[in-house]
């Protein structure tokens, strides 16, 4: 009846970057057939209102690797309990539970990758598509002493967005930071990237 005879996974930890959350653990080495694992989670709601309820992870119940992408399970900005056990046929191990609950507001936010290009006099920016949780604060300026910075919020990555109509003979620079409103945080700014427009300055 599935009495816990298998060793339980150890060293559970969560690595989270740009709202992608990966639960990892030390693999259980057993002779013979392949070892499987089951992952379950519990949000703060479950732990407060239905503490007996644990929800099977959407992508790792079961899994045979020693990691699990729990991004689609961690869907609110509250602490989540996570647990893993080893399974083989009808045998299971005890549950190993993450030592501290994980909250997605602790994710590491990296500056977005971006491509700055031009189409004639038009400054065009394409930002990395980081998913629906992300918006981007884009700052751009004309590269000259005392230049004024302009800012624009771009709602989505993955599509080329028009930033500015540029003056001939001028150079323009762009930097961007990722914003995640659901956790109220933003990344550092990316390195600035610049483009130059051919042609001499236009008559006024």
């Amino acid at each position: 009846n599935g009495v816990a005879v298998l060793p339980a996974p150890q060293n559970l930890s969560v690595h989270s970057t740009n709202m992608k959350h990966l639960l990892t653990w030390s693999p259980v080495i057993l002779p013979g057939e392949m070892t499987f694992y089951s992952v379950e989670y519990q949000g703060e709601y479950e732990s407060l209102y239905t503490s007996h309820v644990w929800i099977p992870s959407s992508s790792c119940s079961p899994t045979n690797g020693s990691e699990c992408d729990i991004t689609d399970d961690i869907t609110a900005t509250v602490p989540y309990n996570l647990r893993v056990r080893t399974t083989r046929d009808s045998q299971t191990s005890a549950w190993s539970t993450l030592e501290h609950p994980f909250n997605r507001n602790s994710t590491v936010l990296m500056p977005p990758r971006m491509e700055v290009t031009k189409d004639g006099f038009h400054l065009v920016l394409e930002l990395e598509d980081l998913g629906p949780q992300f918006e981007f604060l884009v700052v751009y300026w004309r590269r000259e002493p005392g230049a004024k910075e302009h800012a624009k919020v771009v709602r989505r990555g993955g599509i080329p967005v028009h930033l500015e109509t540029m003056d001939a003979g001028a150079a323009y620079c762009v930097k961007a930071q990722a914003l995640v409103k659901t956790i109220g945080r933003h990344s550092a700014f990316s390195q600035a990237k610049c483009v130059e427009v051919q042609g001499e300055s236009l008559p006024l």
Partner: protein
Amino acid sequence: ATCVSGGLPQPTNITFISINMQNILRWNPPAELQGAEVTYTVQYFIYGQKKWLSKPECRNINRTYCDLSVETSDYEHQYYAKVKAMWETNCSRWAETTRFYPFLETQIGPPEVALTTGEKSISITLTAPEKWKRNPEDSTVFMQQIYPNLKYNVSVYNTKSKRMWSQSITNHTLVLSWLEPSTLYCVQVEAFIPGPPRLIQPSHKQCVSTLEDQASALKVR
């Protein structure tokens, strides 16, 4: 007219097709009765109220659609509709829609797009999509009045450089300046509302060419 209920298979794929709050119920004929002289009767229900209501213009009809825009015009309410098929003395059981919530589910039609070109510019003027109205002389309500967070995504394609870029705007005019002269640009616009996924209806792609560069034209003469 009384009929033997369940003697016919039900109509299938019964659903509301809603664009700018024009709500048309559509369905497919029962599978095995394509071509037969089947007629249909429609009823609708306002969620939370007491009984199914009939629409006389959609009783014993042989078309497979029924415009329920008037009956479902309060877009804050939620509705059901059902259809049954009749043939000779037999009729099907009712086939019912899921709960229909016009405010959440109506598609936003594309804006009207007018383009005027200059030597190095294209002016884009948008006319906001209009909400369906009962009578043509009724006053016009724009979808933006119902959805204040409605935005437009303007996509511009430079056929010479083969580059595409887009801009999100909320007002109704956009001037693309400092374009390349004598160049064909294609423009397409879609209206969208941040929120649950809705089917999006982009405008037809319109392509216009910027005028010839006057300076080079003078040199040539």
